[in-house]
C-alpha cells in the first residue's frame, strides 16, 4: 500500500480514535491501515489456506488450454464406445479411469473432468465480471445518494427498494430468453459469448443494491466529519470529494462485500444454468451438469458428486476468505 496523502488522512483518523495508539517515537514503524490488515491476514491460518485454494482454482481456470492439451480430451468429445448398451459408463464409479479422471457422462459419454475445468473458467469469469460491475454501479450510486442526499437520495433509495421487490430468479428466468430472442431467431443457435454477456447484465441489473446500500450508509456516516468539511471549505469539486476523500475511507467494507459477492454470483450462475436458462448444454457449466445428473441419481450416483463437491469447495473457500478479510480489515478485531 502506498502512502498517498489521502491514506494519511485515513491513518490519522484511525490513530486519533484507536486506543493504545503509540505516540510516534523514534524506532516505531508507522504502518498504514492497509499494511496492518495485510499483516493480520498473513497471520491468519484459515485465510492463508482458503487463499491457497482460491489461487489453485483461479490457476486451473487460467490454464484451461494447457490442461486440455496435456489431458488430450476436448469438452465436446463423446466416448460412446466406453458406455454400455443403456448409455451407462463402463467400470466403477461412473467410469473413472486413467484417461477419464472423473469418469464419463451417462448418455452422451463426454469426459466429466475436462467439462468441469471448462465450467470452472466460465463460472469464475461470470462471477468476477458481475462482481466488478455491480460494485462499480453500487459505489457510484451509493456515494452520490449518500453525499448529495435530498431528492436524488430519495429516488435512488426507491429504485433500490423496487429492485429488491423484484423476484430475481423468476425475472432472470423470463428475461434471458426474451433478450436472446430479440437478437437471435427462434431456431438460431445463440453463441455462448452472448449468453454469458446476458447473464452478467442480468446480475448487474439486480446485484448493485446491496453495495449501494452499504456505501450510502458509510458515506452518510462520514459526510459530517471534519476532514470532509475541510476539503469542502478548500473548494474541492464533487469528483474530488467522492473519489479522493470519501472512497478511500470506505474501501475496506467494499472489499469485503466484493469478496462475498463473487461466490454468490457463482451460485446464482449455477442456479440459473440448473433451471435451464443462462447457459445451454453446449457450454460446460456446473449447474447444467448437476441438472443432468439428477436423471441418473439411481443409476450413476457418482455423476452428481464431482460438480456438487467442486462448487461447494469453491464457494466455501470464497466464504472463508471473505470472513477472514473482514476480520483483518476491522481495526476493532482482536485477532
Amino acid at each position, binding site marked *: 500500500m502506498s502512502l498517498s496523502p489521502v491514506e494519511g488522512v485515513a491513518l490519522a483518523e484511525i490513530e486519533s480514535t484507536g486506543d493504545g495508539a503509540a505516540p510516534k517515537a523514534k524506532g516505531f514503524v508507522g504502518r498504514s491501515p492497509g499494511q496492518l490488515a495485510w499483516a493480520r491476514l498473513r497471520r491468519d491460518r484459515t485465510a492463508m489456506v482458503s487463499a491457497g485454494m482460491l489461487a489453485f482454482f483461479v490457476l486451473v481456470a487460467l490454464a484451461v488450454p494447457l490442461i486440455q492439451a496435456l489431458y488430450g480430451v476436448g469438452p465436446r468429445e463423446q466416448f460412446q464406445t466406453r458406455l454400455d448398451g443403456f448409455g451407462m459408463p463402463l467400470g466403477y464409479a461412473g467410469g473413472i479411469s486413467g484417461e477419464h479422471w472423473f469418469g464419463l457422462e451417462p448418455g452422451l459419454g463426454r469426459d466429466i473432468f475436462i467439462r468441469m475445468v471448462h465450467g470452472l473458467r466460465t463460472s469464475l469469469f461470470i462471477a468476477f465480471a458481475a462482481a466488478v460491475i455491480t460494485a462499480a454501479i453500487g459505489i457510484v450510486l451509493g456515494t452520490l445518494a449518500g453525499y448529495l442526499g435530498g431528492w436524488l437520495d430519495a429516488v435512488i433509495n426507491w429504485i433500490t*427498494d*423496487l429492485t*429488491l*421487490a*423484484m*423476484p*430475481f*430468479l*423468476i*425475472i432472470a*428466468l*423470463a*428475461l434471458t*430468453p*426474451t433478450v436472446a*430472442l*430479440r437478437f437471435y431467431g*427462434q431456431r438460431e443457435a445463440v453463441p455462448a459469448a452472448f449468453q454469458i454477456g446476458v447473464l452478467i447484465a442480468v446480475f448487474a441489473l439486480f446485484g448493485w443494491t446491496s453495495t449501494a446500500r452499504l456505501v450510502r450508509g458509510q458515506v452518510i456516516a462520514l459526510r459530517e466529519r471534519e476532514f470532509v468539511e475541510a476539503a469542502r471549505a478548500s473548494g474541492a469539486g464533487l469528483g474530488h470529494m467522492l473519489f479522493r476523500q470519501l472512497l478511500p475511507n470506505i474501501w475496506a467494507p467494499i472489499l469485503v462485500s466484493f469478496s462475498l459477492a463473487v*461466490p454468490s454470483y457463482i*451460485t446464482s450462475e*449455477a*442456479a440459473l444454468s*440448473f*433451471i*435451464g*436458462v443462462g447457459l445451454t448444454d453446449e457450454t460446460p457449466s456446473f*449447474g447444467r451438469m*448437476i*441438472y443432468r*445428473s*439428477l436423471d441418473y*441419481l*439411481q443409476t450413476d*450416483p457418482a455423476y*452428481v458428486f464431482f460438480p*456438487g*463437491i467442486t*462448487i*461447494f469447495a469453491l*464457494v*466455501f473457500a470464497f*466464504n*472463508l476468505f471473505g470472513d477472514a478479510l473482514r476480520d483483518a480489515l476491522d481495526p476493532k478485531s482482536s485477532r
Partner: protein
Amino acid sequence: MVRFLVKRLLSAALTLFAVSVFSFLMFFALPRDPVTGMCPKNCNPERLERVRQELGLRDPLITQYAGYMKGIVTGRDLGSAQGGRCDAPCLGWSYVTNEAVSDTIARVLPVTLSIVIPAAILWLLLGVGLGMVSALRRGTWLDRLAIGFSLTGASLQLYFVGAVLLLVFVYNLRLLPVPSYTSLFDNPVKWASGLVLAWVALAFLYSAIYARLSRAQMLETLSEDFVRTARAKGLTKPKVYGRHALRAAITPVVTIAGLDVGGALGGTVITETTFGIQGLGRTAVDAVRAGDLPTIMATVLIAAVFVVLANVLVDLLYAAIDPRVRLR
C-alpha cells in the same frame, strides 16, 4: 401507528404498481412478438392475426395495461377463444395450458405454501436457536460445532443437498416415497412424507445463515449497557437473555427472514425442480420454456406481492418485538 400503517401501505402499493408496469413493459412491449409463444404448433398467419386481435395487442399499451389491471380487480370479458368471462382476480388466459391463469395459480400456490411455511418454521427455530445457544456458550465445543455447521451450510447448494438427500433416503434406504404433493386436507401423512425432504433441505441451508446472523447479533447485544443494567438490578439470566437481549438481537434476523420467506413464497424454483414438485416456481420455469407470457407475468406479480407484503409485515413486527422502535 395508524398513520405509519397508511404511509407504509401506500408506499407498498406504489412499489407494486411500479413492478407491474415494469414487468408488463418487459414482457408485452419488448420487441419480441408475444404471440409466437402462445400459438400452438401448427400456426398460420391468419391464426396469429386472430390471436393478436383477441389479446388486444393492436390496442395502445396503456389500454392493454389498464385492461389487465381491471381484470385483476373486477374481472373482464376475454372473448370466446379465451374462455369467455374471466372472474375477479383475472390474470389472463394461457394458450399453452388452455386454461385461465388464475386457475393454474390456484392449483400450484398451495403446493409452494406447503413447502415454504413448514420449512420456514423449521429454519427459523433451528437457526435462531442455534445462534442464541452458541452466542451464550461462546468458545465452547457447542459454539464451534455451530460455527462449522453454519459455514458448511452457507456454502452448500440446494440442488446438491437435495440430490444427496434423494439418493440416500429415497433411492438407497427407501425410507421415503419419491417426493410429491398431496393436499394436507386429503391425507396429512402423505402430505408430510412427500414434502419432508424439501423442508429438510431448505431448513438446513437457511438455518445456517440464520445461525450465523443471530449469533453475531446476540454477541453484540450482550455487550450492550442495558443488558448489564438488567443483570445488575438482579434479574435472572433466563429473563435477561430471553426477554431483554433476545428482543433487541432478533430485529435484523426478522428483516432477513421477511425477505427470505417473502421471496420463497414467490416460488422455490430450485427446490421444486430438484424434487420434481409442481409448485409456483416450476410453473414459472415451464411458462418461460413455453413462452407462455400471461403465466410468466402472473408469477412475477404474485412473487412481488409476497415480497412487498412481507416487508410491510416486518416493519410492523419491529415495533412489536423491539421496544426501542416507535412507528411514526
